[in-house]
């Protein structure tokens, strides 16, 4: 047992922070928050150059084959900086699905490009009736003897504006049990039968879209993983993505706490710094408890994805997803309170942290969904 960071891991954290301080300062984040595309090619190239798009890819596809914990440490820093852009969708959703379930040909087609920063991808999962349940998929992919024909609407698809391909989850069999009815497809973009419409969302650092598939035709070579068994392929991918989101929320919460505590030391009211008042001091201490607890839980969940048995990995992912993301929201909310009206103003950065944290909380299963997953494993 050793739950500490190695020297190499500490070095990774330092590198990411230095890079993001220079390349993605809040000025850039704010510009991208309002920008339609949401990131600059220069920064994306820089990220690929640092090797972060390749961390989890196998070596034979230009990857670095690194442990998942290392990626989570990078994501924690990205959350701290509120890094905008398609890193999450490309690396944790599309690329990871390919690594998990792709054929050698599919991997060869996409992964080296992803590693180099030339190809981006995303995942189309949610539908209008899914609610908070990422496992609710009804969009149909009908086999016409020759090809699959995909029709339907997907919601909350991240970063599709800049994606070269989408991994789409659709039904290929009528079974009620979604674990035996869903298949995954790689759909290359642009495609004239795929139309996208930007959603106007609270958090501008990650762009979300509605995607309409109108009789999109794909061949059998586009099926990702076993036919009808898409959910088994997707599950571990979603779990890792959920833990990745936790890391993002922990980083964002850490920064929110620091902003509040720093302000509490210098803002004087009634002749002393507000941090001397226990109502404020204890609020800050509670933020600290929450952030450190969330970080410990996230470490466990990140470690478990590579190292523990599937049941522990699932328990850990759902435990962390519900807790860490709620912490993200509550800590940024507390920080706004400590900052007073300053924290309520658009000019101060703290609202950007609240908005990202809230989005993190709702994406890939909300806390209620994940607690039910925990209960299912514990009690059936």
């Amino acid at each position: 047992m050793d739950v500490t960071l190695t020297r190499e891991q500490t070095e990774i954290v330092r590198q990411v922070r230095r890079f993001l301080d220079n390349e993605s300062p809040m000025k850039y984040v704010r510009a991208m928050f309002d920008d339609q595309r949401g990131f600059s090619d220069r920064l994306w190239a820089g990220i690929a150059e640092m090797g972060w798009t390749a961390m989890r890819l196998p070596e034979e596809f230009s990857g670095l084959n690194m442990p998942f914990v290392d990626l989570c440490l990078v994501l924690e820093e990205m959350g701290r900086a509120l890094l905008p852009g398609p890193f999450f969708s490309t690396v944790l959703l599309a690329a990871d699905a390919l690594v998990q379930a792709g054929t050698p040909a599919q991997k060869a087609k996409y992964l080296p490009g992803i590693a180099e920063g030339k190809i981006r991808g995303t995942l189309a999962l949610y539908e209008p009736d899914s609610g908070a349940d990422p496992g609710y998929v009804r969009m149909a992919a009908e086999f016409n003897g020759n090809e699959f024909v995909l029709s339907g609407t997907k919601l909350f698809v991240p970063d599709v504006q800049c994606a070269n391909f989408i991994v789409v989850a659709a039904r290929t069999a009528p079974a009620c049990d979604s674990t035996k009815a869903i298949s995954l497809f790689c759909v290359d973009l642009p495609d004239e039968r795929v139309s996208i419409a930007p959603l106007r969302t609270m958090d501008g650092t990650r762009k979300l879209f509605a995607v309409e598939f109108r009789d999109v035709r794909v061949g059998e070579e586009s099926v990702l993983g076993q036919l009808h068994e898409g959910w088994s392929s997707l599950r571990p991918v979603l779990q890792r993505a959920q833990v990745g989101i936790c890391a993002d929320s922990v980083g964002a919460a850490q920064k929110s706490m620091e902003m509040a505590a720093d302000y509490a030391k210098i803002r004087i009211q009634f002749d002393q710094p507000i941090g001397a008042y226990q109502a404020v001091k204890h609020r800050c201490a509670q933020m600290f408890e929450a952030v450190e607890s969330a970080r410990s839980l996230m470490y466990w969940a990140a470690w478990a994805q590579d190292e523990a048995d599937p049941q522990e990995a699932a328990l850990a992912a759902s435990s962390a997803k519900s807790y860490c993301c709620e912490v993200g929201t509550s800590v940024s909310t507390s920080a706004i309170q400590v900052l007073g009206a300053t924290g309520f103003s658009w000019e101060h950065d703290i609202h950007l942290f609240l908005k990202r944290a809230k989005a993190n909380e709702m994406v890939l299963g909300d806390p209620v969904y994940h607690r039910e997953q925990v209960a299912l494993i514990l009690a059936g």
Partner: protein
Amino acid sequence: MDFRLTPAQEEFGKGFTAWLEKNLPENWDTSRHNTFDSWEKEAEAHRRFNKRLFDAGYAGMHYPKEYGGQGKTLMEEVIVLETLASTCFELKIAGIITFGMAVPTIFVCGTEEQKREFISKALDGSHIWCQGFSEPNAGSDVVNVSTRAVKENGHYIVNGQKIWTSFAHIADYCILLVRTDPKAPKHKGLSYLLMDMKLPGIDVRPITQITGASEFNEVFMEDVRVPAEMLVGREGDGWRIAITTLMFERAVGDAVMGGLFVRNIRNMIHMARHMKRSGRPIIQDPVFRQQLAQAYIDVKILKSHGYRALSQLLKGGLPGPEGSISKLLWSESNQRICERALNMQGPSSQLMRGSPWAIQDGMWQHLFLRSKGNTIEAGTSEIQRNIIGERVLGLPKDISRVSRQKEI
């Protein structure tokens, strides 16, 4: 990063579990909270069980052999404590002060003679210790201690009163905080003594707690003669040593309490399968399921956090920021877990131990009430948050405390 034990540690844990199965008292129920008919029986069971642990080489894993320990690491100690917490926590309760505070303080701050005299006798169950810090006017503000000790012919003559002294009624010795220099600044006039509870002049009076039990006491001391060799550190060092004492219980608290809570969650699930609401098992109730999951998450936070803090210690570091929140984590999550378990029971939550229809023999009623003390004992939650705010986050002290420091 690795949350797993090494194969050797895993093996050690298995060996200990196997040993434990054969060595628990007769009729011991590892699945739930056990009770004793009297304090005498509890103390006796505690002593007997510790003797067995000691003889089998499972006591004081991380202490050097010359003091009766096993010369292993804190990790082996935590494995033992976690296992005990999840199977027979009640057998260790009477030793919480002994093992959590007295032994580590003596080991770090005591003289060679004190270490030889006291550590192995504590480990083998011969001695139970109590902690005489709090007084009527020295609670959170423990620096206010006014029990006097005057040095005279090789003895300290002690006069004063302690309060809330847990286990004083069964204890053999007491770690005692006294004032030796009333003229010195408050925190520099304190000293730390090891007091034999059988000395003449000591009067122990039990105080009944909200659970109905009397775990703590008032202790009156009138001209008690404590030999001068029983001083820990130097005269005037009492405050520094007292802080050391309070630091220890934090270090392993989370991991150990995590062990206990694992048993509590098992009980919660068991209860939810058997209890009904509107005729249906509670286990199917979506609101309950959310609470069960949250309780499990609380336990996992405790465990992963405890392991993080422990890793730091094993590498020779001091408890870092993760250590400073341990006390808050286990005390507050224990309260939440007990609260949830009680709420599940609906009107049956009113039934105490011994009542017809009582659920799991009223153990949750006891645990619920006892948990309310967790956020008070060993430093209240408010005091912990002052420490985090000021020492970890660097927030300023409030004006009244700044001016008091100037006076000093």
